[in-house]
């Protein structure tokens, strides 16, 4: 366990952008007020995760003084996380995704997404400071989401769209393309975050089927991301939307070199099936996809992880994420191995700053 060298900026450069911070409401009514009248009585009705986590889902030490849920209290978050670690920007990613893709009613799912985004803008992004955020999208309703991206996406502190890792179809399918078109037009990357796998109308969380335990589900988080990424590459999403970026959140990293090598090998032999690609598939990923670190793998020898980061060109492709305030928060100071200077600068802040187009001074970013 080695402490990171840097913590606070001394030269005006950003030193820490945390790419996965979960904010939530204290009470459902905060979001229900933004729902259309036809859904106000229904409120927020999304299935909870079916995999029990014996280590609990949120950190006990992150419970606010008023006893409300971790992640619901701005002063607590600032004091415990931003000030403690010197977070320059916190990319808010939402409240466990509401399990939107689990809902069979696509209209209700889309309106829940819109309502939660209006709440996030009013309650969190208007605070300014370190906060930048994501628009949650319900991929069941691509045209409605495209419209939302073009309107709410104009907020200066909205920096990406986030979709649940699991859906009814692999994300390369043309059904979803209207969302991608809107996101590219608005210059917003699309992030994928796990949670909804196996819930409601989505697919099982592993290729082998429905596992019994959270242990299994969490161990294989990266494999679901692989399924979505190979679809996005092979169906031509990355080549058709060359200015669109994707972010894989909460999938870890170490599978990425394996995944890229296998795609490139297969492309040499099976290129005829993926004629939309005019360069090796790995290059699309390296150019257009970013990976967040958490939950980072922890080999006995941290050098082995560093080697994997080198294999995937981490100085340009990897972005730090803590997952605050969830149970497996990775410490900005202790989670990652010591890195060469250029890689550390990219991973801890530079890559996210470039991807999201963030100014050096967070205070200069408008709040409305």
């Amino acid at each position, binding site marked *: 366990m080695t402490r990171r060298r840097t913590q606070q900026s001394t030269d005006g450069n950003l030193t820490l952008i945390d790419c996965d911070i979960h904010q939530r409401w204290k009470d459902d009514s905060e979001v229900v007020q933004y729902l259309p009248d036809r859904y106000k009585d229904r409120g927020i009705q999304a299935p909870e995760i079916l995999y029990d986590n014996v280590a609990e889902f949120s950190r*006990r*030490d992150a419970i606010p003084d008023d006893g409300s849920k971790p992640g619901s209290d701005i002063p607590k978050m600032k004091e415990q996380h931003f000030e403690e670690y010197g977070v320059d920007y916190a990319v808010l990613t939402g409240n466990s995704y509401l399990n939107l893709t689990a809902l069979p009613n696509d209209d209700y799912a889309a309106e829940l997404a819109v309502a939660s985004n209006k709440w996030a803008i009013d309650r969190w992004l208007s605070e300014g400071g370190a906060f930048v955020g994501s628009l949650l999208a319900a991929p069941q309703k691509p045209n409605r989401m495209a419209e939302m991206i073009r309107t709410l996406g104009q907020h200066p502190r909205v920096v990406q769209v986030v979709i649940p890792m699991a859906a009814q179809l692999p994300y390369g399918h043309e059904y979803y393309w209207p969302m991608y078109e809107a996101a590219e037009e608005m210059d917003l990357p699309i992030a994928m975050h796990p949670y909804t796998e196996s819930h409601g109308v989505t697919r099982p969380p592993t290729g082998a089927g429905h596992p019994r335990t959270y242990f299994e589900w969490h161990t294989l988080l990266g494999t679901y991301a692989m399924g979505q990424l190979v679809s996005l590459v092979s169906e031509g999403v990355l080549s058709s939307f060359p200015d669109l970026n994707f972010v894989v959140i909460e999938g870890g990293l170490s599978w990425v070199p394996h995944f890229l090598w296998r795609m490139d090998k297969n492309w040499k032999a099976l290129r005829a099936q993926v004629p939309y690609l005019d360069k090796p598939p790995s290059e699309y990923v390296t150019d257009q996809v970013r990976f967040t670190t958490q939950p980072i793998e922890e080999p006995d020898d941290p050098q082995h992880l560093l080697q994997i980061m080198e294999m995937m060109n981490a100085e340009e492709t990897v972005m730090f994420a803590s997952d605050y305030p969830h149970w497996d928060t990775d*410490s900005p100071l202790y989670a990652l191995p010591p890195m060469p200077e250029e890689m550390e600068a990219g991973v801890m802040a530079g890559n996210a700053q470039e991807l999201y187009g963030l100014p050096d001074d967070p205070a200069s970013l408008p709040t409305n």
Partner: protein
Amino acid sequence: MKKRFEICPAAELPPGKREITELNGVSVGVFNVDGDYYALKNDCPHQRAPLCMGKVTGTTAANRSGKVDWTDDGHILRCPWHGWEFDIETGQSVFNPHKVRARTFETTVESSEEEHDNESNARSTADCCDCGASGDEPPVDTYEVAVEDEVVVVYL
């Protein structure tokens, strides 16, 4: 030479309760497990999270027939980050007791050294020990003072 710290009257730390306090600049969690007292550094060896704020719980063990038992209830401290399990008595992790362990400190219950001075001193010792008790408690009667003569002490 270890330094002696009086944490609080034993009666204020009943079984199942904990007190997190700073001793010599070190954050320490003091636990009462079934009437025995233990202290651990509030610092997880994994990523240095505040270990002592975690859940006090038990754990599972599978016997040879494959039956799963719930064991050590109340003796396991689970870190609030990442959920690593530690034996509160020894500080040893459950998954690798010999290599991964939280730091522990000697903890006893003994008479307060300050009780021998005079009555006002003894009371001030109790007052400055914040065990989460409300400040609106009724005045301490003679009987309660006798109970609180015993204090939880940590050496580090």
